[in-house]
């Protein structure tokens, strides 16, 4: 039996969360402390396997002595902190953040949790007026810093625009993008080190972009799909899923998820194959898997067609190329 290093013992820090005294390990964040106490804290830009960027501001909490609210996801606990997670100020800010996002971004694929938060905070995105008509393809990508068309106020500006479909692997539908920076982090320092995408532009015109908005085939993208894996709103999506959704055939209730090990190399990445009607429709990896932390490479993520290139129409027994 070999020794396993379990880390140095951590000092405990005493903090007060919603009136309850609690002890949490030094260095943990307020979010971790809240979760340990069973206090639900909404998050959008936070993910366990990425560096917190604290930009969505939906996790803000009130710390006594601090002028503004602080993001729970990145703020480390300090001894004696007195924290309120459900004060009027916190509720107002969380409600407004959800309203602002929902009024400008298509959140319909952001999952049931977001819907539940919208209800529990009483968010009403319609307060800002009817959504403005979508922008044309590439229009938002050409926006220049420091300039914008004067609004008339009759409708609420949104990020709606046509989806970018420029390759066979995945689709970028930025009308669903909340600019959580997760894909940029996964493409860059937090996982893939490819840096094919970055945030470009400024203000409301900030967007995820390749250099000069070139298509993915002309960019540095290596199609690892780790950006899809971390996208919380369905802005980045397998082409297979996108096509099924468009044809109305996507049905999660008919899907099974099979965990397996990637067959390509010896690293041993866990794959979760999402299967509908006996076809693989997307591939994910568990966030808590020691090897992948949720991240895969192009082979594990997209290299599955061979599984289903089975001789459906080919009865010669010679494989996919047999007919020629």
């Amino acid at each position, binding site marked *: 039996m070999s020794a396993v290093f379990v880390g140095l013992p951590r000092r405990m820090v005493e903090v007060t969360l919603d009136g309850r005294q609690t002890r949490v390990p030094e260095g943990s964040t307020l979010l971790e402390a809240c979760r340990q106490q069973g206090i639900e804290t909404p998050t959008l830009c936070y993910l366990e396997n990425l560096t917190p960027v*604290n*930009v*969505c*501001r*939906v996790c*803000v909490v009130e710390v006594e002595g601090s002028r*503004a609210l602080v*993001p729970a996801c*990145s*703020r480390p606990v300090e001894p004696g902190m007195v924290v309120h997670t459900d004060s009027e*100020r916190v509720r*107002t*800010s969380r409600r*407004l*953040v959800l309203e*602002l*996002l929902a*009024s*400008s971004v298509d959140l319909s694929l952001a999952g049931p949790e977001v819907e539940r938060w919208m209800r529990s905070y009483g968010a009403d995105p319609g*307060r*800002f*007026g009817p959504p403005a008509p979508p922008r044309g393809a590439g229009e938002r990508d*050409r926006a*220049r*810093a*420091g*300039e*914008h068309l*004067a*609004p*008339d*106020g*009759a409708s*609420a*500006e949104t990020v709606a625009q046509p989806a970018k479909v420029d390759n066979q692997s995945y689709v970028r539908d930025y009308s669903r993008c*909340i*600019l959580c920076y997760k894909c940029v982090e996964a493409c*860059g320092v937090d996982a893939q*080190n*490819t*840096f*094919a*995408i*970055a*945030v*470009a*532009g*400024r*203000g*409301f*015109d*900030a967007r995820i*972009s*390749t*250099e*000069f908005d*070139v298509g993915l085939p*002309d*960019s*540095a993208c290596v199609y690892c799909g780790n950006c899809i894996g971390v996208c919380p709103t369905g802005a980045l999506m397998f082409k297979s899923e996108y096509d099924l959704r468009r044809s109305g055939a996507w049905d999660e209730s008919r899907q099974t998820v099979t965990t397996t090990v990637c067959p390509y190399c010896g690293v041993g990445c866990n794959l979760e194959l999402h299967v509908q009607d006996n076809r693989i429709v997307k591939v994910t990896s568990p966030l808590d898997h020691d090897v992948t932390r949720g991240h895969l490479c192009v082979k594990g993520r997209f290299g599955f067609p061979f599984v289903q290139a089975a001789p459906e129409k080919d009865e010669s027994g010679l494989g996919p190329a047999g007919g020629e």
Partner: protein
Amino acid sequence: MDLRLGVGGAATEAERAAVDVVLGPPESGWEGGGRRPIDGHVAFGGRAARARRHLLLPALHALQDRVGWISRGGLDYVCTRLTVPPAEAYGVASAYALLRLEPGPTTVVHVCDDIACRAVGAESLCRVLERRYGPAGEAGNGRAAAWMRSPCLGQCDHGSAAFLQRAGERPRRRVVAPVDADLVGAMLEGRDPGPPGPDRAPRVRGDGSGLRLLRRIGVVDPTSLDSYRAQGGYQALRRALELGPAGVIREIEDAKLLGRGGAAFPTALKWRAVATSPVRPRYVVCNADESEPGTFKDRVLMEWDPFAVIESLTVMGFACGAERGYVYIRGEYPLAEERLRRAVEEARARGLLGPDVLGRGFPFEVEVRRGAGAYIAGEETALFNSIEGRRPEPRNKPPFPAQSGLFGKPTAINNVETLVNVLEILREGGPAFAGLGTAGSTGTRLFCVSGSVERPGLYELPFGVTLRRLLELAGCPRPGHTLRAVLLGGAAGSFVDPGALDTPLTFEGLRSIGASLGSGVVMPLDHTVDIADICRRIARFFRDESCGQCVPCRVGTVRQEELLERLARGRPLGSAAQETALLQDLGAVMRDASICGLGQTAANAIQSAVRLGLIGAAPAGGGRR
């Protein structure tokens, strides 16, 4: 790093040459130079090239100045030289208003239509320009010149202002104020108005008790170190070297100096936190990215007393134990930049900067960095990111700059005015300095007075003077005019009522009426000014200048502008009460949940205007009272 380069075509000779001036010639095939036999065996670049990432913005400037835009080939070449992913470099370039990413006119005249210029008729100038030269921003039919609307150019004491940006072999950047449509037209047609001569110093004013920070303005020759020394220059540095770092900080503590950039943080605390940090190297930074609409004090100091800025930064470096200081100056201040660069060179040549300052074994270097049109870069952590060659996005605090600032190292950063105060403190001693002003606000303050006044300009008065007294000095209200409100602190500040004129201008006095002096803007507006229009310009400003990182500010500033447009058009959504509630909510989330001061103050002025009844959510015509 998966760099994919060379897809969009090669850089032209001109582009490469411009970049090479900043980065030096490429040393290997890896860096985009000629391919040598050894390049096939050994990789060059990598970590060493990435360590020069901070040269990204200067290299982008070089492209913009040479060819008028940043082409794919040009960007690729910079990326090759610095091993920066093109997507990131594009992200950086697209965050700045003065960098173009599509081919365009080589001459652009940016005409200020911001609040101060607006109050004296900038909009009518813009309408003339529209008639004569077409809509703002459109070069049209391949014309080589275009005019654009610009946020504040820091010339508020002159009336309308314009900033000429001309690319070419001999690039030109000039700010002219005052301008009229003819002068803008001449610049569009290729005229270079030239820099103002050393005799064109602005008139600075006090209340007769003697100028301190502004003492040398118009007296010294800003291009001559000897002239500066003849006026007592570099005495403060000698005094600092006698006192030692801890002694300097003690004097500043005794002086109770508070930061003049807007946050009013005790300067001594900042410096001491850096000076006592165990981490090295440390940095000191002079924040000269003065972009708050209505503010021009730092420009005047840098243009007309540049050695004072360099001397005080040297003192700061000495006190904080830093060997390198940066001055980050906004791109719209070409004259100030030129004079500072010249001052740095002259100081270096005379041993006042360099490996052994004044022969006392203290090494200190100063580097001047130019911004590229981003108000947000004046936020201290966004400024660090900008110097580092990253997007000018504010960082979350804590950690504060004193722990982790520029390049992740302990950094002290102060505004120009704050720094120049240090010279006064060393000249007369901390306690004497603290004797001036009030107990909570010591020393003097620079007030940038513009708007509806007879004598706009830069005023230096001891803290504690009342707003009424300052307005009297500036000639406000003008005869036959009725004062309606005073905008204090610029776009991020707030309106105060004429009823509050007896408030003493101190940090604590203004706090008690819910206002703040911010960067020292005092802009009285009388009945000739459409305050609703000023509010809409402020809303537009924040919509344009938000970095886009956090939701409250990115979307909140858009919704705020939309709401004001509805009010102006008399078409509220639902009832007036609903609109008021919406405005309150937007203010609350921006103030409470934004990452940085920009978002936290983006609703200030508008909310105060509503509180004072200057704009209202009345159903019809409520925006135009």
